[in-house]
């Protein structure tokens, strides 16, 4: 069962060196225990472009689809047995990156 663990941020700051180091340790463990599927950090929301090609012409809009104080700063995709296991890893992940995280199952 795969879960998306989204990292929620409200500050413009990047991860500090300490946070980066903690994230690396956490990632290594995810890989070693076989839970790692994918992970990545994202650039600031202002760098996003929204594309709507449902009409005749594609429309490009500068900026994120949702302007909000909190935004998606990065994510993990993990593979675990159930929600309890996902919550346990996400709890550690939140500590490692020092940010709130959201756990959401894939369909």
């Amino acid at each position, binding site marked *: 069962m795969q879960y998306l663990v989204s990292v929620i941020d409200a500050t413009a700051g990047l991860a500090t060196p300490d946070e980066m180091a903690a994230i690396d340790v956490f990632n290594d463990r995810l890989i070693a225990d076989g839970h790692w599927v994918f992970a990545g950090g994202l650039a600031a929301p202002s760098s996003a472009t929204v594309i709507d090609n449902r009409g005749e012409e594609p429309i490009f809009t500068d900026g994120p689809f949702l302007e909000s104080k909190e935004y998606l700063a990065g994510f993990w995709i993990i593979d675990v047995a159930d*929600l*309890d296991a996902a919550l346990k890893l996400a709890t550690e992940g939140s500590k490692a990156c020092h940010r709130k995280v959201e756990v959401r199952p894939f369909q």
Partner: protein
Amino acid sequence: MSAADVQEAITRAHREQWARVVASLARRFGDLDIAEDAAAEAFAVAVERWPADGVPPNPGGWLTSTANRRAIDRIRRESKRDDKQKEAQLLHDDDPPGPSGAIDDQRLRLIFTCCHPALAMESRVALTLRLVAGLTVPEIARALLVQETAMGQRITRAKAKIRAARIPYRVPSAEDLPARVSSVLVVLFLVFNEGYLATGPGTDPVRHDLTTEAIRLTRLTRALMPDNGEVAGLLALMLLTEARRAARVSASGELITLIEQDRRAWDTALIAEGHRLVRERLAAGAAPGRYQILAAIAAVHTSACDVRDTDWSQVVALYDQLVRLDPSPIVALNRAIAVAELDGPEVALAAIDRLDRRLAGYHAYHATRADLLRRLSRGQESRAAYDKAIELAGNTAEIAYLTRRRDQLGLLAVIDWGRHAAQPPRRADLTATGSGSAGWRLAARAGRRSHRLPPRTRPASTPRSRKSRIRGHRLPPRRASGVARRPWPGGP
């Protein structure tokens, strides 16, 4: 067997077997929806058939096998429709299905799944009442004062999340157990508290149905986890609280505080059972958790046949222990209420005034302050605090109690004024403003007594004092008491 006997057998089977049937079907078919519907159908078949066919020798076995057949029928129907969808709905369960031993009762899995911390608290309460206690959706909606359709949706959404997010159907590992048990206990305590101090203008102040249900669920949890001290503690706390139920609301629907209660109306059987549990935990010698400490406090209160025999130093010592576990302002508030009895209202007031900011929205904080201020003869401030408490309180009996207290204060407030006025008003002035109203009488008394505070008077017309007079018993000392003494956060 008479129709009444059959009805009684069905009611008993529902009470005793519902959770067992749901739990065993959930385990076997891996789906809470199927388990719930099939169990409900089996009971409906029993209602139809038992009056004619007689009550089967093993009602639990009959119900489980009937529910099993119904579930299989449904799965066959649905698997023709969509195999894949059925696959996706399976509850996640590490262990192979099969008969379970005595240690791992399937009902325990059901309880832990319904009280999973990833579900909203309202959903946990609703699911537990539906799947473990067997209340119908309309019953739960009524109990929790929610629209029936909204309650139905809440339960459906919760079950959908259990499926989609794969909340496991199992008893948590030993390492996770304490945190998960406390999540279960919070749900049970919430059901109890909602019964004990019902909120909402249209409800009875004490909802016996909910307190009974909460105790029943806690007894079940205790039977399934007999070694867990906190489960025993919560059960003891509920029993020792429930024991005071008959004495807690007056005939006129007003809250009677612990200090003012007629202790002869307390339920001695429940008290004895609660005390046994507390003694059992003391004998176990393990460090107590919050429910065990709260139960011990309740045990101190219920050990005193007369309020004057209450061992307040013991109560304060137990609160000190609780503060170390849980330094929340609500615990500090409750501790201060006991401190008022031990060291006087001034010390207690100083303690709770330090909590001001964090408890400004909590009615009990203002009610406690109002009482302490009243005892310190600071009438005006006390009145303002009562006003605030009444504004924030939700329980009808508590509002009635606080309102009476505040209105009696009218007397004191005016006396304060009389005491501080340079010259007491003359009788003629008072008559002119009063013209026979209650205001006149109060003002007139203030005028007469302006030089001296009256002794603390007993409210003239509480049913409790009437009853005592009729029976010719000695009245307890009318201590200046105030809000219901809350032996734990959240309810008196």
